[in-house]
């Protein structure tokens, strides 16, 4: 039993068909439970009032926005090194999902920032690096769409993803240099004494789990679609030849 078995599209389709309903169901359950718990059964914050509740959407989507890019980096590397098509397709499938999470994080942040900071947008390092991450996602998706040959597209986007990762990290630290922050520091670190208070922390954990599962479900679904689209193209090509 090795993970490379799933490089075989047939095996991947079988396993993911079995896995998908479970992951989707769990994602929905976690999100419903976490969001209802978070929105209706937690107290208002002492200073932030009810706006604190946006944390249940903002933090998990921001986490997944970054993790989606990391996943794309890993799958791109696997594609470049081992030439497994499923890996390249998973990378392609993850990009729009990651972009959506990035936009959700930016929008929820703006809705929270308007009453709390008094502005929808500030050129804070975290906000700026997320905006730059959005641009990287857009470029990646646009490159996939611009190139017709699927293998060339997979190769070029994988190279872009590798180089883009380095520059995204560079930009992350360059903007720290460029401006001081308004955004609060990390409040979920595992190694810190004091984090978010437990009343907010437990529903947040459920929401994070829900977002992770949602991401996995969406990526599985989209990868399956991509594999089917690829099979369809192969069938059509065969028909033309016959």
């Amino acid at each position, binding site marked *: 039993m090795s993970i490379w078995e799933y490089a075989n599209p047939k095996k991947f389709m079988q396993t993911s068909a079995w896995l998908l309903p479970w992951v989707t169901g769990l994602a929905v359950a976690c999100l419903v439970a976490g969001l209802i718990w978070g929105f209706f059964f937690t107290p208002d914050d002492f200073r932030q009032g009810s706006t604190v509740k946006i944390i249940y959407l903002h933090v998990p989507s921001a986490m997944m926005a970054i993790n989606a890019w990391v996943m794309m980096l890993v799958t791109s590397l696997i594609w470049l090194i081992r030439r497994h098509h499923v890996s390249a397709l998973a990378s392609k499938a993850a990009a729009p999902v990651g972009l959506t999470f990035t936009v959700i994080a930016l929008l929820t942040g703006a809705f929270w920032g308007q009453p709390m900071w008094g502005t929808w947008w500030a050129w804070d390092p975290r906000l700026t690096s997320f905006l730059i991450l959005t641009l990287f996602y*857009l470029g990646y998706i646009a490159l996939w769409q*611009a190139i017709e040959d699927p293998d060339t597209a997979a190769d070029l986007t994988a190279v872009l993803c590798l*180089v883009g990762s380095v520059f995204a990290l560079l930009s992350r630290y360059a903007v720290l240099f*460029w401006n001081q922050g308004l955004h609060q520091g990390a409040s979920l670190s595992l190694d810190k004494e004091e984090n978010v208070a437990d009343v907010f922390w437990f529903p947040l954990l459920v929401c994070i789990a829900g977002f992770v599962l949602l991401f996995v479900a969406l990526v599985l679904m989209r990868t399956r679609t991509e594999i089917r689209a690829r099979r369809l193209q192969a069938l059509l090509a065969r028909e033309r030849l016959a």
Partner: protein
Amino acid sequence: MGALLIRDLRLAMRAGGGFGLGLAFFLLVAVLVPLGVGPEGDVLGRIAPGILWVGALLACLLSLDRIFALDFEDGSLDLLATSPIPLEGVVAVKALAHWIVTGLPLTLVAPGLGVLLNLPVAGYGWLVLSLLLGTPALSVIGAFGASLVVGVKRGGLLLSLLVLPLYVPTLIFGAEVVKRGAAGQAAEVPLLLLAGITLGAAALLPFAAAAAIRINLR
């Protein structure tokens, strides 16, 4: 490699377009910005470092698609790829040629445009120094972007979408050097970081660009 460099330089000079256009664009940016934000000297002086850097960056972007596209169309890129020079070397030489025809002239005219934008006197040396150190990074990163879209017809817009996010660190450190220099503060730290980006990009990106070209020629 020397012959390739001379060939690229000759092509850039004689084909018209690329060489003068970037400079004209840079000049236009420096003229249009005061028209847009108003003639107050202190406002212009404060935004001059950023405007000059953004202008240089966009002027650089204009001619990027010419680095490989023409050679790809007439087939000389295939010849270069099969020639005894490694493709990484070809990329590096072409990026160098691009820098000589765009980055270097931009650096030389920048102080003149600084006068138009009322850049504080202390900033001129830093402006030239930062552009001199930073524009090679723009050319190398741009060559990488151009190598990705070499097979795409009308890839100009796509190229800017791919390349501009990659320009972010260079722009931040480059403009910061001039801003600090113009304000009379110590500008060595961003200058060193800028030089680091240029050296790192020049050392590593030709490999990525050569890989992309090989994929496109497959």
